């Protein structure tokens, strides 16, 4: 007697997980080859076709200067997700390295790094993001910098507590007794054991960072206008919301779908690693 539920359990996939996997595959394609899916130019202006609702010619409609929204939203996938992925990678490398050293070495390094991290954490993430991009000015570079600064502390904390726990384990003591240097123990023994936690943190933080990226874009603090980015398209759509809802609908749906897919993936990972 093997029912549908058993099959699902054996495959390890609930409907939500299957949906998330499918969405992840679709987004991977959109990031890799957007021009194959949407051959139209995301930048070509055609004022004679401004604010057209969705049709067979323009599946997602057109914006206020007649650009094809399908092309813009599809091409934005790589830019938006790429910016978030890059910013988080920067935060992960910086935060994890600092955290590993702070947790393993302790002492003054730990104290100073800990206080610096506290400074960033005094602000809700979105406010820190607004302050940084607001002061430095809009643009992709500053957006990445802001997101990296906001999320570095969270990687720091995970890596620090991981390294702290590992440094008390007997294998570290054994390595010391065998005459390995501290740097070598940190790099070769402790780091590989903490790395999975850092990677998990990356996946868990991704949907949150995506929301902040979109919010900053929506406030006009993100990617500069002609470049397609989900948050920036939403900012543009805000002014036409009651006459052209379609400008705002699609980028929001794509944001929702990608955040959803990564979130479900993160939960599966958490369960696999036994941290949930």
């Amino acid at each position, binding site marked *: 007697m093997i029912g549908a539920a058993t099959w699902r359990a054996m495959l390890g996939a609930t409907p939500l997980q299957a949906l998330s996997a499918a969405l992840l595959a679709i987004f991977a394609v959109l990031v890799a080859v957007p021009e194959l899916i949407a051959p139209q130019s995301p930048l070509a202006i055609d004022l004679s076709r401004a604010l057209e609702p969705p049709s067979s010619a323009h599946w997602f409609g057109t914006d206020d200067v007649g650009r094809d929204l399908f092309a813009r939203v599809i091409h934005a996938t790589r830019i938006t997700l790429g910016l978030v992925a890059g910013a988080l990678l920067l935060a992960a490398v910086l935060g994890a390295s600092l955290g590993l050293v702070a947790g393993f070495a302790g002492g003054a390094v730990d104290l100073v790094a800990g206080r610096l991290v506290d400074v960033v954490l*005094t602000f809700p993430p979105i*406010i820190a993001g607004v302050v940084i991009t607001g002061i430095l000015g809009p643009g992709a570079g500053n957006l990445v910098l802001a997101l990296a600064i906001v999320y570095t502390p969270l990687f720091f904390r995970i890596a620090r507590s991981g390294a702290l726990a590992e440094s008390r384990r007997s294998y570290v003591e054994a390595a010391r007794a065998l005459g390995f240097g501290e740097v070598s123990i940190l790099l070769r023994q402790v780091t590989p054991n903490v790395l999975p936690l850092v990677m998990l943190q990356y996946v868990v933080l991704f949907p949150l960072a995506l929301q902040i990226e979109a*919010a900053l874009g*929506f406030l006009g603090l993100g990617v500069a206008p002609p470049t397609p980015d989900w948050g920036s398209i939403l900012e543009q759509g805000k002014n036409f919301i009651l006459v052209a809802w379609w400008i705002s609908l699609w980028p929001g749906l794509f944001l929702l779908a990608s955040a959803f897919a990564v979130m479900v993936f993160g939960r599966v990972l958490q369960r696999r690693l036994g941290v949930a």
Partner: protein
Amino acid sequence: MLRFLVTRLASACFAALLSSFVVFLLMRAVPGDIVAQMLGQSGSDRAAEQALRGFFGLDQPIHRQFLDWLGQVVQGDLGRSWYQGKRVTLLIADAFGVTFEVATATLLLATLIGVPLGVIAGIYEGTRLDAAIQAFNLVGLSAPVFWVGLMLLVGASAFLAWSPPFAYASPSEDLGDNIAIVVLPVLSLALLQAAAYSHFVRDCMIGELRRDYVKAAIAKGLSPAQIYFKHALRNILIPLVTFMGLILIQILGGTVVIESLFSLPGLGRLILSGIQGRDYPVVQGALLFVVLVAILINFTVDLLYGMIDPRLRP
């Protein structure tokens, strides 16, 4: 416990001080201060530039400016806005009234929706009902708050032929208009936070129902209602209170975006317009205020611990 509270408060205040200084530095480190904005591109008038810098105190060394500002702050004076000339404390008080209204209404609504949903999902773990609630949670957590706001605007206009008034009215000016203008922002924020609550409460509930005392209670013959509400729910109160603090801080952040969308003159808008105009006293004052509110929320959460769980009392 008391020592713990004091240490935490002290380290939080230290962080607030340090973060004020960082913001102070950051704003002055980038080109384009208020003087440059006032004089515009044509501003080649050296004398006028000097005079204005002197007027705003921008000709002083940075540490001097910071100490002057700090000296005022300690006396409860956040200075005056460089644009409007009004006291920053008054601007913050007005703006916070708006943000406070939105935040408390959101917290209330999110709690009323999220907690019961989470409890139900936890009790009926693994059923279709649980799956539906989980799907709601995931969608709520994934949907950008401001996008939900935009879609609510579209929906209200298309299906109800209704749109909120343009100008903000305080509850004392016009209660009807006030409710009409805050209802959509509150709904958009509450969806996300209700989902966060429900997700969290579900996990807590499931964890609690697997504990040994629940088995003992079942064996003792207690009714399910007694087990769920008298035992399990009571035990998840502590994590719930911590989470409420987190949510409140999240809402505070969320208002920045939602206020800009719905033209609410709250704290978020004050910070945003202050940054854009390089109105340093407003930005510094408002940010310090936000940080202090966050510290206060965390402190209250710590205090509530002791009230809920006598074991944690000093």
